[in-house]
């Protein structure tokens, strides 16, 4: 009869396990494909071993895409962190204004990134967009937002920031609200200033919460696709061709399946490595925060 007891959890996870295999299977298949030269024009491909990866790493286009991707991810995650924490701190004061605004904080996060990109595309139109209209009085009427390499990258990051800052803010706010009060009371009794309290108490204790958000954001923006697809489609030139866009062009538009997947496999490895490093870091930060809270 004992086997029934040890087997029970397995019975419960079998459906999920099957479904997971259903998702894993194409992953494995994808990995397998990268060893071939499978494309629309070659439906019965030959094994090429690691040639696809060799091509990826020797292509200038890959290194350009990798660089753009990193710029995008670092830029977006950094701005979102600073802005998100700032918004959380401001909301945490819980003034009347803050309490009202907090209810709508989540809105941009609920909008599909691709829709957000469409919205911003319309607003950033140099000729008819509202942003240049509003900037006109300041003498900035004719900015070519998505038309210059730097502008296009910054505009894409702006959309990312618009959508995802609430995510960081929500986590930071949840963190702020769960901090122990005694260290702050002690600091207040000692007459510590706002900045000192923030640097020495709030930030170190809050950092684990924020870091979780940053990890999520950083990893997600490494695989950005929707926003760029709808906003710039990778242009102008190759200035916003991030890795997933490159993979899309290769695999879908040009129908070179194997080669396109090789790109995403490399990206996956990068994201995974980044996650490992960050999670390790998170553990350290959490211990430190616990020490501060205990003092």
């Amino acid at each position, binding site marked *: *009869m*004992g086997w*029934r*007891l040890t087997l029970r959890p397995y019975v419960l996870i079998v459906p999920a396990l099957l479904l997971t295999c259903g998702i894993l299977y194409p992953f494995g298949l994808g990995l397998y494909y990268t060893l071939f030269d499978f494309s629309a024009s070659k439906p019965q491909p030959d094994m090429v071993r690691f040639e696809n990866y060799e091509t990826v790493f020797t292509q200038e286009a890959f290194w350009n895409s990798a660089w753009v991707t990193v710029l995008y991810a670092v830029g977006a995650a950094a701005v979102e962190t600073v802005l998100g924490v700032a918004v959380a701190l401001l909301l945490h004061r819980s003034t009347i204004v803050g309490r009202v605004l907090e209810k709508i904080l989540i809105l941009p996060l609920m909008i599909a990134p691709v829709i957000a990109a469409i919205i911003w595309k319309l607003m950033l139109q140099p000729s008819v967009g509202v942003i240049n209209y509003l900037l006109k009085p300041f003498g900035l009427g004719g900015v070519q937002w998505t038309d210059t390499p730097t502008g296009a990258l910054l505009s894409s990051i702006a959309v990312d920031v618009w959508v995802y800052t609430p995510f960081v803010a929500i986590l930071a706010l949840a963190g702020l609200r769960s901090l122990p009060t005694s260290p702050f009371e002690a600091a207040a009794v000692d007459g510590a200033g706002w900045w000192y309290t923030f640097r020495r108490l709030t930030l170190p204790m809050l950092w684990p919460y924020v870091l979780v958000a940053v990890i999520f954001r950083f990893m997600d923006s490494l695989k950005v696709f929707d926003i760029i697809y709808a906003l710039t489609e990778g242009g102008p030139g190759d200035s916003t061709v991030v890795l997933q866009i490159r993979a899309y062009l290769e695999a879908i538009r040009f129908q070179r399946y194997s080669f396109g997947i090789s790109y995403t496999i490399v990206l996956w490895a990068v994201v995974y490595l980044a996650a490992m490093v960050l999670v390790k870091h998170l553990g350290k930060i959490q211990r430190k925060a616990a020490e501060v809270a205990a003092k």
Partner: protein
Amino acid sequence: MSTAIALRGIRKTYGKNTALDGLELDVAEGEFFCLLGPSGAGKTTTLKTVAGLEQPDAGTVELDGKDMRGVEPYDRGVAMCFESYALYPHKSAYDNLASPLRSPRHRLPAAQARERIGEIAELLGISALLDRPVGRLSNGQRQRVALGRVLVRPARAFLLDEPLSHLDAKLRQQMRAELKAIGAVQRTTTLYVTHDSVEALALGDRIGVIRDGRLVQTGTREEIWYRPSDTEVARAFGRPRINLLPGVVTQDGGFRSADGTIELPVGAQAAPGTDVLIGLRPRDITLHGPGHELTGTVYVTEVLGRSVEVTVRLGEQQVSLVAPRSDTTGLRPDDPVRLSVRPENLLLFEADRPERPGRRIETR
């Protein structure tokens, strides 16, 4: 009397931690058995193993002589009161009490159930609280509801896990008295877990002392009190704690303290020169009574209501004793005193060792 609950060689580990290490336990039919031990000793695990909520890695659980292997908790017919109460927070007190009576195994018709719940609520003094959601009850009230959920249904055994621990001292004392008086409890085999030796002594027909997943001693309260199996058990019972003075066994089987100031003839059944501890319970030492005499000086006195705790310096050692207030009037620190202890009240133990407490040595 037949054995209602029997545990044979139960082992249970959680990862690297061993919770139960070859536990043996017998509880007789209708008996009220108290399992006493510090936290982490394996008390709760023992209860859950009996209930079938935990599966032992080795050993067998028998209820009424039947091996319970593979029998689901709901088929074991035992009722358990959890230390955390485990009341359903989304239900009212009434629904919590009614839960067993609505289950497939103990189902009663609604009217009958209402009657039964009324009786139990009356008994526990919670009749007025039945409509309240559990979240709005005090700890004491929750405790009673949890107990009620156990009592409301028929059971072959009650398993009670520290049911009084979260109560304040007064309520605890009151409940302790009531609990024993409840008819169902008197009739039903009860395995009661506590870390409070007073509770164990007050309630238990028999007491089992559990430590590190093993039962170190089982017995009636007298056996536990007068013949503790080792220094730990001796320390666990009685407040103030038993005095344990280090020394050696002399050539003639007597005891001599380490500094030589105390010598007592005890008839130790141990080789001369063995390191030992002699145990003197504070309430067994008198100021003017019969027995062996010891002289020392008063160190400090502390009034405990009608009696007084006196700490006396005997050479390099200190012993405490409890004496009636009338005997201690006029005692000041540094006053010389003479203590006496009856030979039959002397307990002798091996010296404590790092790996285990000293075992009791038989005396003549």
